[in-house]
């Protein structure tokens, strides 16, 4: 026990002496949080629409007005021909072409049915899909409004009251967005980014820390001392575990102050999950340090692993959009469970029972990874 205490003191001294690392540990997270949270967004902003109005009527002008008035669209340009519009779409001068054919107003007046064409730049399919549902909604509303105008007897008789017409179902559908009523992307991304920050410290710092001693030859010196394997590993990992927890705290405070991300659920649950998760993250770092010889290799392996780990964790793209085999693979990814848990607890106020399966998965993966890594670690091997 005394040995452990001395070793721990040595580790803390070493970390404290390294100004660069300390700075990296506490300033980097805030910077990363700011950059990542702002960059990592699928939010659909205003689309630039190119108008090809061949009808030149009041009705067609009003339709364009409606689209712009919704705030979702801005007119990027107009042309009488399709050729120019196509060019704009190709060179990214516009995101969507709205083509209103000749006779649009006439058709509405005569047969009450007309069509317009919307051609989206669908390179990014998800964005184009969302923008097209906005456009359809605006155009649909405009049609409904025109119906009211064309029925002056009904509309002006009593504008406040809607007359029941038997056989004509009228549904009033309300839309609700729970947990994120303003559809703010920061709220969704920030809890996940916090997890990623903790992962970088937990895994890469651990791997580098041990490999550095290997490279410097001081690990061999430690190995010939009577210090036991368990004591050595504990002394190496405990300080990093504590730093990561501290970093999480800095991150949660920054998330609250900078982005107004709520913490709906119990904070203890977040720390419990982090404590469990870090065992897996540190274990991975330890395992990397065992299998490689140089810091360069360590960083390389760590980075390759982290890339798979992070991109497949549901941080950026939803797990449920992945094919089934990838979803199964994600189940053994502790990062995925921790991110899902953080989002549930911070945004939805999930309690202990809601996330119990996730906690179980975190515990199990920590146990498996750590014991594999410890078993691989031989004093003689280095």
């Amino acid at each position: 026990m005394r040995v452990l205490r001395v070793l721990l003191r040595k580790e803390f001294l070493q970390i404290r002496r390294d100004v660069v690392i300390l700075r990296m540990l506490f300033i980097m997270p805030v910077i990363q949080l700011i950059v990542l949270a702002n960059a990592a967004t699928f939010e659909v902003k205003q689309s630039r629409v190119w108008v090809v109005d061949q009808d030149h009527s009041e009705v067609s002008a009003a339709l364009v007005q409606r689209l712009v008035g919704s705030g979702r669209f801005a007119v990027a340009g107009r042309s009488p021909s399709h050729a120019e519009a196509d060019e704009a779409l190709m060179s990214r001068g516009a995101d969507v072409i709205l083509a209103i054919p000749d006779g649009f107003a006439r058709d509405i007046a005569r047969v009450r049915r007309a069509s317009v064409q919307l051609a989206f730049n669908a390179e990014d399919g998800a964005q184009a899909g969302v923008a097209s549902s906005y456009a359809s909604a605006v155009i649909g509303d405009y049609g409904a409004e025109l119906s009211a105008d064309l029925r002056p007897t009904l509309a002006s008789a009593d504008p406040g009251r809607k007359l029941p017409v038997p056989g004509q179902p009228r549904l009033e559908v309300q839309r609700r967005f729970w947990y994120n009523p303003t559809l703010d992307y920061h709220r969704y991304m920030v809890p996940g980014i916090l997890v990623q920050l903790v992962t970088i410290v937990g895994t890469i710092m651990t791997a580098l820390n041990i490999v550095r001693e290997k490279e410097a030859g001081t690990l061999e010196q430690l190995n010939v001392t009577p210090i036991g394997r368990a004591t050595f590993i504990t002394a190496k990992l405990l300080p990093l575990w504590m730093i990561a927890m501290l970093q999480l705290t800095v991150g949660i405070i920054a998330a609250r102050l900078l982005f107004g991300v709520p913490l709906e659920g119990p904070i203890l649950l977040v720390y419990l999950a982090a404590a469990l998760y870090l065992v897996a993250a540190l274990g991975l770092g330890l395992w990397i340090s065992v299998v490689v010889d140089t810091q360069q290799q360590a960083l390389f392996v760590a980075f390759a692993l982290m890339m798979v780990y992070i991109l497949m964790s549901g941080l950026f793209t939803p797990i449920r959009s992945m094919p089934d085999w990838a979803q199964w693979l994600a189940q053994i990814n502790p990062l995925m469970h921790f991110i899902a848990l953080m989002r549930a607890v911070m945004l939805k106020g999930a309690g202990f029972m809601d996330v119990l399966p996730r906690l179980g998965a975190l515990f199990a993966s920590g146990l498996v990874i750590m014991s594999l890594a410890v078993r691989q670690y031989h004093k003689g091997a280095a």
Partner: protein
Amino acid sequence: MNQALVALRSFIWKEIRHILRDRQTLVILLALPIAQVTLFGFALRTDVRDIRLVYVEQQPDAATAELRTRFERNGRFTLIPANPASGSIAAAFRAGKADVALVIAPGLAEGIRTGRVAQMQVIADASDPNTGSTMQAHVLAAITAWQRDLGGRGSGVVIEPRIRMRFNPTLESVNLFVPGLIALILTIVTALMTAISLSREKERGTLEILLVSPLHPWQIIVGKVAPYMILAFINVVSVLVAAWLVFGVPFRGSLALLLAGSTLYALVGLSLGVLIAASTRTQLAAMLAALGGTMLPSTLLSGMIFPINSMPAPLQLVSNIVPARWFVEISRGVMLKGAGFPELWLQFAVLAGMFAAMMSLAIRKFSVRLD
């Protein structure tokens, strides 16, 4: 001059032998890109697949049963039974077992028969805003379709939007991500590997030996960079073949233009790697700088995953100095849109400018004596 070329050739051979000798790294460099494209191509998706819908009838009747059947037959929805209490919806959302809830107020059938307004509520778990609103839109569309079928011919005006999705009609995210992945892979091979290889020689002191040799700094740099250029080219071709064979990513433009763009981008990456190696002292510092300075911006600020239009203005400005951003525009333009040089000259010009600027800076840094 002739002598300089001979010297250069033997120097390049030495570098190639260095790389060939390190089998492990070589295999990783050749196999990793293909593995990455396959893995991420399959897994990085944003398409909405099935929607788990909590269907709450506060007072079941013929109409609610009919609507339920429509949802069941739709194929896109998985219905989750729930009791009418709104607390059970929250519980399902919290445990991550449902995506959307549809709550139908009592009297739907009655309302339809008499023409009175019937009310319902579509609640989305919007903690993921995009997925939440997309799923909600699907539920609304299904309800609207049902309503239309019920109403028969209405007297209202119908403006039908005919929507065409250009360049990616099926809206598949693979088509978006794979051209972007090429940028990421090229960055790893070029910038990261050159930075490491050069800074290793620097750390070991062998670079000083090279610098006092009759070789010019530019010869050293060309010799160091040429083998990685070949590797990068092999990677581009293998990734393109994988994208085409495995994912059927469309290939509408000219292959020559894309290869030219890739070569130019690889040159930018290599010069960035040289510059990083020239301005850092240790291998570790070079690697951290390469990771932080190239990998993260290439993933996050290039538009590869996240649309640049969605970012706040300052970040959009910053994205202009990220080389990957310009290359992603080239690769998407050529592959998806069939764009030619007239549409893409700006991107080519920017990349060429970056290459010239970084390379001359790097050569100047190396010409000065080390420390």
